[in-house]
């Protein structure tokens, strides 16, 4: 069982899942923040970012340890496992459909242009820019909320809340540094592949913990997690192949991005 001292493969999958999920969400947030900073100025945009990150950190501190200390482990695993299973299936389904060309890929360039156009149109007042603060705060907070749920659920259930938080913080720092260096939205990041990876891991953890929560017995204990990742990876690959076969290769407009998708 994942207790924080057991098999390290569980920890590797945990860190990878949190890091990738955080990177994907922070790339999306960076697009919004850059659009705000470029069009409205950086001071209020960065204040919005700081306020959102502090709020997200406070949520982890408030709810993470409480879950670990006050909720019985089997109940925690059942509820968290169910949450991760549903959430992971949504990510995986979306990534499969995008890979198969049945859903438009997330287009950071189009989303950036859309935000710049909207922000340029709204009037500006002297002093603190409430619009810039609000849009930057909302962008970081809403994208980060999914990360907080993943950090709290994965971290609390495996009793590795600190490790999960560190992985998320590392992703935030990485995206900020890369964003500062290139000073543009990160449209080259393979978001869909990363979402596929996160989806695979969330579904694997979700299956593992929800089954443990109802007292199923996994052969190999924690070693079942990487096996689950491989199993779901194979199933997803077969699904993509079947969809491509059924639809006759990628529709070109969708493969190139098509209409910007925010999901």
């Amino acid at each position: 069982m994942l207790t924080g001292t057991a098999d390290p493969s569980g920890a590797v999958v945990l860190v990878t899942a949190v890091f990738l999920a955080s990177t994907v969400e922070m790339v999306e947030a960076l697009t919004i923040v850059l659009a705000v900073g470029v069009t409205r100025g950086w001071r209020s945009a960065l204040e919005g970012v700081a306020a959102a990150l502090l709020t997200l950190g406070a949520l982890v501190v408030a709810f993470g340890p409480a879950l670990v200390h006050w909720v019985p482990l089997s109940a925690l695993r059942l509820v968290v496992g169910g949450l991760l299973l549903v959430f992971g299936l949504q990510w995986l389904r979306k990534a499969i459909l995008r890979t198969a060309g049945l859903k438009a890929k997330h287009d950071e360039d189009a989303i950036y242009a859309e935000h710049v156009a909207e922000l340029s149109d709204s009037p500006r007042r002297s002093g603190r820019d409430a619009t810039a603060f609000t849009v930057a705060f909302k962008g970081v907070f809403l994208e980060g909320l999914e990360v907080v749920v993943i950090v709290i659920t994965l971290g609390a259930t495996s009793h590795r809340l600190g490790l999960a938080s560190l992985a998320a913080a590392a992703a935030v720092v990485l995206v900020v540094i890369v964003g500062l260096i290139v000073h543009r939205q990160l449209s080259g990041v393979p978001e869909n592949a990363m979402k596929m990876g996160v989806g695979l891991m969330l579904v694997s953890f979700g299956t593992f913990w929800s089954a443990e929560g109802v007292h199923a017995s996994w052969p190999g204990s924690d070693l079942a997690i990487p096996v689950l990742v491989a199993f779901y990876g194979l199933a997803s690959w077969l699904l993509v192949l079947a969809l491509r076969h059924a639809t006759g290769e990628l529709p070109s407009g969708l493969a190139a991005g098509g209409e910007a998708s925010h999901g």
Partner: protein
Amino acid sequence: MVERGSGNDGPVILRWLTAFGRFWWDFLIGDTPELFVGAVAIIGLIAVICLHPGLRTAAAILAPVLVAGLLTASVRRAANRGPS
């Protein structure tokens, strides 16, 4: 975002609760209710099987097979609706 209450929209706490409920609805159900219902049904079935102690390992092996089936059904449902 914190919004000031205006008499027409009801108490702030009610709007916060509504927003909280909407977040979880979008988070768990959104446009794929079949995934939520299917996952709950699978966990329920595994729980029933685990009531028999001798079948607990079999239940664990069955779980990912059922989840993969659910994913396949949901993806096929989306594919049948066409590109989005």
